[in-house]
């Protein structure tokens, strides 16, 4: 069956429809939901979506609902193995508990990335990344 489907985005995503998927976005957000539709640009429709944040070995989630994600923002679409999901060695906590840690982590990473980009640009001869908003 696989060999009958040509090498297209559609061909490789068709068996993911109606399954619980993890979507990582370019801004670092992690969403879990049921994939309902997609197209050749990897625009995605996710139903019953929850956003998850992680910090060390704990995570928290928040119900977000229905998403239509523009393809350019997608980093990765992963199929969640429902058997393995139960055995993940992580502990769930309240969103409000984790949010502050998560915000700090995001801010720290942004700071670090900016410092790195600065060094690469000024001393190592790299060009600036993400001028058109397509960088990390």
């Amino acid at each position, binding site marked *: 069956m*696989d060999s009958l489907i040509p*090498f*297209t*985005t559609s*061909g*490789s*995503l068709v068996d*993911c429809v109606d399954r619980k998927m*993890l979507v*990582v976005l*370019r801004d*670092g957000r*992690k969403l879990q939901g049921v994939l309902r539709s997609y197209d050749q640009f*990897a625009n995605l429709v996710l139903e019953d979506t929850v956003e*998850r944040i*992680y910090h060390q*070995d704990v*995570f928290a989630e928040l119900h977000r609902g229905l998403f239509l994600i523009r*393809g*350019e923002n*997608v*980093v*990765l*679409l*992963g*199929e*969640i*193995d429902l058997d*393995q*999901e139960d055995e*993940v*060695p*992580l502990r769930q906590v309240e969103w409000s508990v984790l949010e502050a840690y998560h915000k700090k982590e995001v801010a720290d990473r942004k700071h670090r990335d900016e410092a790195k980009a600065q060094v690469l640009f000024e001393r190592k001869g790299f060009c600036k990344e993400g001028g058109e908003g*397509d*960088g*990390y």
Partner: protein
Amino acid sequence: MLIFSVFKTLTDQTVTVELKNDLSITGVLKSVDQFLNIRLDSIKVLDEARHPHMIAVKNCFIRGSVVRYVQLPAENVDTQLLEDATRREAASQVKR
């Protein structure tokens, strides 16, 4: 189109994909499309502790635009053939 063809010949091989968000994923290359979107099966994430969201994920689709590098199995890439093909493609583009 040339690189697309190269990737097609590498299906069912194990490759490592490094993304622009510094996530590195090793897995079996299942398919690739014209945008170089990549489908990997039986994936393993390097430094899983730093990326806990990937633990329960066993296969994934990676959008081509976020890939930084793909590490290929050297023994399965005929560099001589690739070099010739590249020259041929470049020559045919000059003619047009």
